[in-house]
């Protein structure tokens, strides 16, 4: 029973995040059917409405660089588990994103795991 409730809650959360994202701007630029995980170090994390702004220092095959991402609204982040003081500049973080369709750096953060292991979204 608890598993069923968890599945319903998870599906509802995903639908909420995606539909709410689409309500605020066109989601055409990002592929919400794909999920990519990226690790890096937080440089800027602005929690705001209608969307948050995040800059993460990422090191991968293309080298080290700062990449800007968009997050969901402050209100929906809160409902997905975000709490004040959960992360700060300099912290390591693992993000899940809907990547840009054109393959460029950036995308829409749908969830993340902090260095302490706190999980928000999916």
């Amino acid at each position, binding site marked *: 029973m608890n598993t*069923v409730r968890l599945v319903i809650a998870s*599906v509802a959360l995903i639908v909420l995040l995606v539909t*709410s994202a689409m309500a605020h*701007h*066109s989601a055409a630029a990002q592929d919400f059917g794909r999920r990519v995980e990226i690790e890096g170090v937080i440089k800027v994390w602005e929690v705001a409405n*209608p969307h948050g702004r995040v800059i993460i220092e990422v090191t991968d095959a293309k080298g080290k660089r700062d990449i800007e991402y968009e997050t969901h609204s*402050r*209100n929906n982040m809160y409902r997905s588990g975000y709490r004040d003081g959960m992360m700060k500049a300099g912290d390591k973080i693992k993000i899940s994103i809907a990547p840009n369709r054109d393959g460029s750096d950036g995308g829409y953060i749908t969830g993340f795991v902090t260095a302490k292991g706190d999980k928000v979204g999916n």
Partner: protein
Amino acid sequence: MVHRMIASFQVSLAVLVFASLGFAQARGNTERPDFSGVWTNYQSGQPGQRGGRGAGTQAELPYTPEAKRKMDEYQALVRPTGDTPGGYCLGTGMPGSMLGSGGYPMEVIQRADQITVVYEAHNEIRRIYFGNRVIPVADRLPERNGYSVGRWEGNTLVVETEQLTEIVSQRFAHSAQAKIVERYTLTEENGRKVLTAEMTLTDPAFYTKPVSETKRWSIVPNGFLMTYECNEPLWERHLEELKKKAPGK
């Protein structure tokens, strides 16, 4: 003496009966369905079953050529950037504010003379007035959510909304002449309250015939709304710009 006592008793009895009738009538007038509470998109409790607004693909609406021209012009303007009013902290306006609520929850505060509806997204607020609270049409200013007047038809709340501004940035685009009628009913499923709104939009300037949509919400026990602060980053960036331009910088 006996006659005076009987007469006095009859008067007292009459007063008591009329007072009781009046009390009963007053109670009858206030015993309406209580829509108060916090509401989210309808949830049936079954995996894969969602309610909310009309399920399935959205049918093409019977826009007039003039409406289509205005909407196409707007889309050509914003499509390259994906901009929306919400991205600029502007509320959707009716009927989108109502039909889109639920992802971000909706709160209903019900009084006999006014029902206040708060949509969390963009802090949009509608006030539905009853009876003496309704002001003359000439004293109303057009707004994105219009001016709403309510009445009860049995247990159905009927809300008529006019004095809307023209909005082309939502599916149910409309002119300033639009009239929206919502019929709200309360039911219960598996012990949980369900609120249903049947909306009809009439606007000869934008539609060749009235258009309708049904929206459902489920109650959220002990639910709460958050404030939707939206302009703060914009204001902080403006302050940074002012600092750069300040004398001595």
